[in-house]
């Protein structure tokens, strides 16, 4: 266990480092999506240099080997200093990294992990137009062939919602290598170089004016067999490692950031001259209490993990609590902001709780839909935690 004194020393170190290195005015500087990507990349490399980019990696990595309690301190300080969230490198340092740590060969680890710290960007190519909540229904085909004397998977199909794929160098790709048996059984996990021939990436225009994710068309893309993670047909298990890579810390950071953004609502209340309006104050109090409880449940989740006591469904409760508060937080901002909020204002790319309440509201859906939607979380809580049984698998109309 970490003693309090060493955690406080760490806190002081991070705070001092941030005082010297945290970027200022980054929101204003990111006028285009390309500027956003450049500023994200620069901040990530700076954090690597400072030793605070990958606290969750094993100890042999510079800046790695931090306990969960230490990670928590680092995230708290990053949130407190209002630094940009690491959006561009998120999949690289969490999803890709944990896939490598848990499932990859020594050669794969040695090749890919150092490159992540040099700024190589990964995206996740799991979802497809017809495989969203039902990810196992994915259809992108991979056929093993020998081409130019090399054994390769020839991959064709379509992926969608791939976050930051337009900037990605590499892709965590789920493909179907067999249609026999259970849907999960024919899935294989590949690492695909985004510069390969036959990869066509098209950013998707989102409703708030961002282009956070992309469609990806794959036409006979050749992926060397050595780029497979795990055995052929065992990709589903590898994908579980990818998806469970970040457990709770992101939501803790986000909940803390929402707490920090409470001031934006206070600002609106003052601007509207409603400091003495009991109804408004009651609503403000209620939402901030829900924010506190989102922080508390994230904290407790992490404490339980520290003790090795995480239970099935706990992560779902943390996520569902956060997503519901996040959406209602933005809705309260909209209500207090009034007609003025309906005038289109510039957005902060990929950010939440920005005070552009319409954009914040639209962005809240990233958390109610992505990464297992609210409905899917409810299913997990009801079926696995409350043990209410699963809906029959064999329904047809």
């Amino acid at each position, binding site marked *: 266990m970490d003693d309090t004194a060493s955690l406080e020393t760490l806190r002081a170190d991070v705070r001092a480092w941030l005082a010297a290195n945290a970027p200022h005015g980054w929101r204003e500087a990111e006028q285009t999506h390309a500027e956003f990507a450049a500023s994200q990349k620069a901040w990530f490399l700076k954090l690597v240099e400072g030793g605070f980019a990958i606290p969750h990696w094993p100890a042999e990595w510079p800046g790695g080997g931090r306990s969960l309690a230490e990670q928590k301190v680092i995230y708290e300080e990053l949130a407190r200093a209002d630094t940009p969230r690491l959006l561009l490198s998120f999949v690289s340092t969490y999803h890709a990294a944990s896939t490598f740590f848990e499932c990859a060969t020594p050669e794969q680890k040695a090749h890919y992990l150092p490159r992540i710290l040099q700024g190589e960007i990964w995206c996740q190519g799991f979802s497809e137009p017809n495989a969203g909540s039902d990810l196992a229904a994915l259809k992108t085909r991979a056929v093993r062939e020998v081409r130019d004397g090399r054994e390769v998977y020839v991959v064709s199909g379509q992926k969608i919602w791939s976050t930051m794929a337009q900037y990605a160098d590499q892709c965590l790709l789920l493909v179907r290598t067999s249609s026999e048996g259970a849907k999960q059984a024919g899935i294989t996990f590949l690492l695909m170089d985004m510069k390969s021939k036959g990869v066509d990436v098209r950013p998707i225009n989102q*409703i708030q004016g961002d282009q956070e994710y992309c469609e990806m068309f794959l036409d006979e893309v050749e992926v060397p067999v050595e780029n497979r993670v795990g055995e052929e047909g065992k990709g589903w298990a590898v994908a579980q490692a990818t998806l469970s890579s970040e457990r709770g810390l992101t939501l803790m950071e986000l909940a803390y950031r929402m707490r920090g953004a409470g001031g934006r609502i206070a600002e609106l209340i003052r601007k509207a001259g409603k400091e003495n309006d009991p*109804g408004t104050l009651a609503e403000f109090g209620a939402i901030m209490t829900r924010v506190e409880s989102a922080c508390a449940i994230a904290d407790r989740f992490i404490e339980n993990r520290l003790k090795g006591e995480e239970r099935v469904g706990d992560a779902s409760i943390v996520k569902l609590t956060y997503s519901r508060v996040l959406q209602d937080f933005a809705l309260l901002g909209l209500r207090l902001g009034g007609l003025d909020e309906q*005038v289109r204002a510039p957005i902060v790319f990929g950010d939440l709780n920005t005070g552009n309440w319409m954009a914040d509201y639209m962005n809240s859906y990233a958390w109610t839909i992505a990464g297992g*939607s609210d409905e899917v979380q409810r299913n997990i809580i009801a079926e696995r935690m409350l043990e209410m049984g699963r809906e029959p698998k064999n329904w047809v*109309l």
Partner: protein
Amino acid sequence: MIELSELQDAAQKAFPADTLAPARDASWQLIAEMGWLMIDLPEDLGGLGLGRDATTMLHVEMGRVLSRAPLATALITQRALALSETLADKAGWLERTSTGTFVTINYDRRRITLDGRTVSGTLPAVPDADMASHVLLCTDGLIALVPLDAASVTVRERPLWDETRRLFDVTLADHAIDPALVVAEGAAADAIAATLREDMLLGIAADAIGGAAAALDATVDYLKTRRQFDRPLALFQALKHRCADLKTRIVAADALLWARAADPAATSVQFGALKALACEVFRFTTQEMIQLHGGIGLTEEHSAHLFMKRAMLDFWLAGGADVLNEAAGRAALAA
């Protein structure tokens, strides 16, 4: 006498449900050709005199297709002109506005200062000022037409999240009201303004109900066709209940809409409360619409966001729910 159902059929043929947010100017022309700009005008003034049932029906239908054309605004300003006892060339105005000349109005009455007949200030939230010849300036004790091409008038668009509507700031710099363009003054102006406000609230409520119904229809259709886990999503009872709740809220709000439209004694507080209810139902329906569509609902190419953004604007036009519900609460307390 035209039956309401005939009017609805005609509206649905002219503005089919599968063409959302049709182009504004073409829609406007169609609206004029269909004679809808005469629908509200009393017969003795050359109109059809069909009243609030008919206009409500049209506004529901226009809401359903996310119409960009300012029909509700046009009918409101025309009603003011029809009620005027001072307007010079009133017959000419009614003739022009019932054949396509558009007069807009400020949906928000703040920020105007009046010095005798000289007006200064910015009229916020003026719809479609770019296609209007005049704005009907509506302020305490005075309603008057202001030509938008006057030197003392500047018009600036405020781009909205809602792509289906356009609002402008109209700024008046010591604009001297032309006596021939005074529509009403004093108590008469305030009485007309109250009527206009009722029409405004009813019109937005109808728009919201139409929009909510179309949003729910589209969502239910999607859930019936979208398959996950080897079945249509519509088969999940959790989602059925969400849709059933939306249906119930929409139908109940629709019932109140028609009850108020038919009630000559309905008060402006009641219209306001109706508007607040209908707009909250629309807003919430679009919130669910996006959620139930999953990722596709967050893309520009899908129409869900058009509904959502329109619902948000409807929510605020002519007053937000808090203010309107508070008035209803006070009225209920006094009853």
